[in-house]
């Protein structure tokens, strides 16, 4: 198992390295942001670019970049958005808003999603199941900004319960801040709830019809006992890894929701860095998103092995 884990992690790191390299080179191929000669910092910017090897071959530039990352943890400084500020620090500062909103959202929605999925599976082919399945299908199909719009219009405008946008400031744990986050949390939750409902329902219906359930009933277990002891545990083999995946995904957040509710998070930073354009920030963000994505997928894969011995055995061949 350890060997398998190490193998996967090394592969992931190689993938991450290649992707970062490709993106870095592609971004450095673009002309860097212009600095007007009147700018008092023009000279410093020029010197810094010289040091980063802007006039050297791209692979040398990448080498310099890697060296400064590994030796000084220096990811470069922002070009346009926050001129002269360290991009890693900026990203770091933007994290709490994103993490908080997404964390609230998944903490609320994962239990709801799983419970709905269980209800739908247990009441399969009744009106309850049909309603839940239809709603799930609708929510999954519709893009998130559509229900973000509905939520904003209903709760913020018509009813006036919540503010339109997230409150500015860094007092993340006040009640006021939480209230201003509620519309965003709701909009994010719909998708997560629907996703978990669907996975749980599909998995549980499959488990419930399998033969070991019949065996359990034949042994004399009641339906409730069989469901709780055998079906749920088997259904969790699939559901649990995606819970882990969601917890990792918390950090990347949703670009759209952050734009609509003006959450000062990573997603907004990313969009701003594209529109500015601020290339050092963009490289930082690209690396961040890529690593989060890869980390989530590797955690999901590995947790399958940890949870279910059968999958672990399969990986050894």
């Amino acid at each position, binding site marked *: 198992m350890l060997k398998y884990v190490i193998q996967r992690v090394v592969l992931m790191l190689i*993938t991450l390295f290649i992707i970062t390299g490709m993106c870095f080179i592609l971004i450095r191929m673009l002309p860097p942001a212009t600095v007007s000669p009147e700018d008092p910092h023009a000279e410093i910017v020029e010197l810094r670019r010289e040091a980063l090897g802007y006039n050297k071959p791209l692979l040398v530039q990448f080498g310099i970049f890697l060296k400064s990352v590994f030796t000084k943890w220096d990811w470069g400084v922002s070009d346009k958005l926050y001129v002269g500020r360290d991009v890693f620090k900026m990203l770091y500062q933007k994290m709490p808003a994103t993490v908080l909103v997404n964390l609230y959202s998944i903490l609320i929605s994962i239990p709801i999603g799983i419970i709905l999925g269980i209800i739908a599976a247990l009441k399969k082919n009744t009106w309850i199941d049909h309603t839940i399945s239809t709603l799930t299908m609708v929510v999954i199909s519709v*893009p998130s900004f559509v229900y973000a719009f509905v939520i904003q219009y209903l709760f913020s405008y018509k009813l006036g319960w919540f503010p339109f946008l997230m409150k500015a400031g860094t007092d993340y744990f006040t009640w006021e801040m939480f209230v201003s986050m509620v519309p965003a949390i709701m909009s994010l939750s719909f998708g997560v709830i629907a996703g978990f409902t669907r996975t749980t329902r599909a998995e549980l219906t499959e488990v419930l019809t399998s033969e070991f359930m019949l065996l359990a009933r034949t042994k004399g277990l009641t339906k409730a006992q069989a469901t709780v002891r055998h079906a749920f545990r088997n259904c969790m083999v699939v559901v649990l890894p995606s819970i882990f995946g969601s917890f990792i995904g918390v950090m990347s957040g949703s670009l759209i929701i952050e734009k609509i509710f003006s959450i000062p998070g990573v997603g907004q930073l990313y969009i701003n860095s594209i529109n500015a354009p601020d290339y050092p920030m963009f490289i930082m963000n690209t690396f961040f998103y890529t690593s989060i994505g890869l980390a989530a997928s590797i955690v999901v894969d590995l947790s399958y092995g940890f949870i279910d011995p059968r999958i672990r055995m399969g990986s050894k061949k």
Partner: protein
Amino acid sequence: MCVIMDNNVYEHIPAEQFEFQQLNAELHDQKLETKSRGYFADAMIRFKKNKSSVVAAWIILFLVMFSIISPLVSGISVRHMDTVYKSHPPFIKAVADKFSDKNWCFWDGGYTHESQSESQLLVWNAIGEETGLNPVNRVLGETIQKEKYRGQWRDVKYYTIENNKYYERGVVYRTVSYEEFQRIQDFQNETGVQVIYPYVEAKDINDIKDNPNIWYQVKDAKGTPAVDAEGNLIPAYSTNPSLLQYKEYDDNGELVTVEVPYNSLRIENDPGNYMYGYVRSGSVTIRVCYFTYYQYVNEGRLPNYVFGTNSLGQDLFTAIGVGARFSLIFAVVVSAINLCIGAVYGAIQGYYGGAIDLFLDRVSDILSGVPFIVVATLFKLHLAAKVGIVPSFIFAFILTGWIGMAALTRKQFYRFKGQEFVLAARTLGASDWRLMFKHVFPNSLGTIVTSCALVIPGVINSETNLTYLGIINLQEVFGTSIGVLLSQGQTSMTSAPHAMLFPAIFIALLLISFNLFGNGLRDAFNPSMRGVED
């Protein structure tokens, strides 16, 4: 001689006793009583049984027709952006004329104003009295409030009214050249529609210069209307003939007065001496009713905005059609290209297996690790200037889009490549290529095609997301797209919710139906997969 007495003795039957059972009879299999059907016909029957998918298919057809037809029938180009009718609600004049007093009327350009005072109501009605297009659709309710007025309490009535936002604008000032002035007059003569209304001089209305809608005598500088004994408004139109005159030097160097002619429609109560413009430094300032002026500008077309307008003044009916047309064509093109690339890639992976499979798997792993948004941005930054925004957008979708399809094809190939019919074909000397695409691929076609139906909504969704975020800007190329419409609707959400509502409904309906349709197709082609969601 032995005579055969016993019929049960068969050993010595003479030849002549044999007779032919069916010498001339023709042998046939029994004809099948039912019609035979193939795989696709069978799938079709299964699909038709799935009611929701059939409904979804019809909805998709309807939406596709809508996107083709709406830009044609509306007669309004998506690039036409009206400067005044921005964020206006749905309106069709023929419907509004008939049913504007009904609460259910949808196309009356209705916009609700709350707590309107009596005198404000008078102002709205005054606009209607002048232009003949009454902005007040209906009074929805009234409240009585106690207010202190000059030391005494008194009851003041406030109304909630629904106005026609198109008529509400009433009259606006326009400064036009002499030729333009003449053209508007020609338009009036031709159609009999009053565009220009008599000029009101600021000195007659308490020096109010910024409100073109005042045509009556006023009591104060706020523009409160003054009424006569019967409660009617008293016109304040100018009769000063010097308004439409200017002085210039003629050929002899003498200062002469030139009259700017107005020989066109006059309003009903005109005694014949009202002045229809004010000449100032080479141009004429006129009061035009915006509703009819719109007709003049747009060659007689009425502002019939079926879905209203957005914050840019675009017709939503046309814009949604144009945006959807792009989305649909784009999604189909991208899916088709991805299908081809993915099929070939997956076929090679699945057929050869081993080291090739491992290597290609690594390549697709790396590509799928790049976040899609990064791909889209990089392609836009690098290629948009060289090959245009749309091709770069397509490339971005193709770069990672085929991976899912390749994985699917690979799986199918692993399933079929070891089967006997492939072995038989190989024994007969078929080439690898022939085995792949003539023998194995057709067997996996069902699965691949059905998953394509589920890929299309995914492409539409990401395309809408990207244009919504403004990362890809298609406005210059196509005028608009659904994502752009949605993000514009967001800005005017409180004042004009319809601008967000219609594109949102459209995209939601489209994606839901595509997903339902795709699920139905999958169930029909792979009955064993029924109910499995992935």
